[in-house]
């Protein structure tokens, strides 16, 4: 069984300078309760790893807008103009990584692999400083595993062993991040007894989860046109 903590308790050990993976795609699947607790705690200089920085003041975007991150590793920052402004004035050090490479580097970390060979980025700025290998007449970049101290994952349902069901397109980076981070905090809409979550419906096996937090904030990622 995994510890069931309050959001405040779960984020307690995230210190200034910690590295943190936040799952979600344009806010879809962000752990809103955990992000809120971290913002309230006032932690700074986080090394943030995320697919994108959502929108200003939505989900993971709040960690950017409220100046909580020192570095950012992401594939897309275009929907949150504050990320670009902070990057341009030197306040935020940004490393842009192709989305598939980002997922695969984290998966490699969690899967015990020494890296991945990908054709993505060959002939572009992405290949700078990386080892290139030619295999079977095709060029590949060696991309190294990517881990983190902490990860925030959002599930709809979790059992007390940490087995989690993530609906629809909220899965995105969650599986790779849960594998890659040292301490994985699972925010769940509903926490159930072992046996109540069908093992066939488990998106992330509980083995990767460190602690579970009951979600208290609703998903707020939808950018609805008026």
């Amino acid at each position: 069984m995994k510890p069931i903590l309050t959001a405040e308790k779960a984020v307690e050990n995230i210190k200034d300078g910690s590295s943190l993976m936040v799952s979600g795609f344009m806010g879809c699947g962000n752990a809103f309760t955990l992000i809120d607790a971290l913002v309230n705690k006032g932690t700074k200089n986080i090394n943030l790893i995320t697919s994108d920085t959502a929108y200003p003041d939505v989900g993971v975007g709040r960690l950017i807008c409220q100046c909580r991150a020192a570095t950012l590793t992401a594939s897309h920052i275009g929907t949150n103009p504050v990320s670009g402004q902070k990057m341009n004035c030197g306040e935020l050090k940004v490393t842009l990584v192709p989305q598939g490479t980002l997922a695969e580097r984290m998966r490699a970390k969690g899967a015990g692999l020494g890296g991945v060979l990908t054709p993505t980025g060959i002939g572009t700025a992405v290949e700078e400083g990386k080892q290139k290998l030619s295999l079977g007449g095709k060029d590949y970049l060696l991309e190294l595993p990517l881990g983190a101290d902490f990860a925030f994952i959002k599930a709809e349902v979790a059992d007390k062993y940490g087995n989690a069901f993530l609906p629809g397109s909220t899965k995105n980076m969650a599986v790779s991040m849960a594998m890659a981070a040292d301490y994985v905090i699972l925010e769940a809409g509903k926490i159930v007894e072992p046996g109540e979550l069908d093992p066939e419906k488990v998106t992330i096996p509980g083995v990767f989860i460190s602690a579970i937090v009951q979600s208290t904030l609703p998903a707020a990622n939808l950018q609805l046109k008026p």
Partner: protein
Amino acid sequence: MDPKELKRERLIKRIAQELPDGSLVNLGIGMPTMVANYIPKDRTILLHSENGFTGLGPAAQKGGENPSIVNAGGQPVTILPGGAFFDSAMSFAIIRGGHVDYTVLGALEVDMEGNLANYMIPGKMVPGMGGAMDLVVGAKNVIVAMEHVNKNGAPKILKKCSLPLTAKGEVDLIVTDMAFIRVTKKGLVLEEIAEGTTVEEVVKATEAPLHISGKLGTF
């Protein structure tokens, strides 16, 4: 419809005709997304959304949005019968592994070697590549959908891209409001021109040299 809209609709329709029945297709944000509205009725195309599903359907009805189902632009959408959800590692395995038949995306610049620049303007616009680099490298066929010239009227089809590349030598087709151009080993071949456009106008608006197809058509 104003002439600009009409031209844009024509190019989107032309791209839709290019997608064979049963193919798996990823449409980029903006103009490429509209291709979905013009798929010929007798064809079934499966759309891939890189944030994690196949069977991408239309935008969600107002009031019926599901916060767990959004497209790659973050907009609430629907999933069609026959669709499937998966995580990013799987989604990009589908892309990089060559299982996506066609990707349609916009461009800032494209050149005669099939090089594509569409993800940044240094010092000006740096949104990041998102999934574009993986898509262009991995999809079997890469179609660029764009205006033939930029806002200032300068060519976007160049001898050599000047902006940072998204991918090298991966573009197969360039479809614009003026022309349908295939990228081949011997260079760019003008296969079709848009109705109301002349070959001279296309050549003048293109920096890269064009081979004119012997069977030049119109669309």
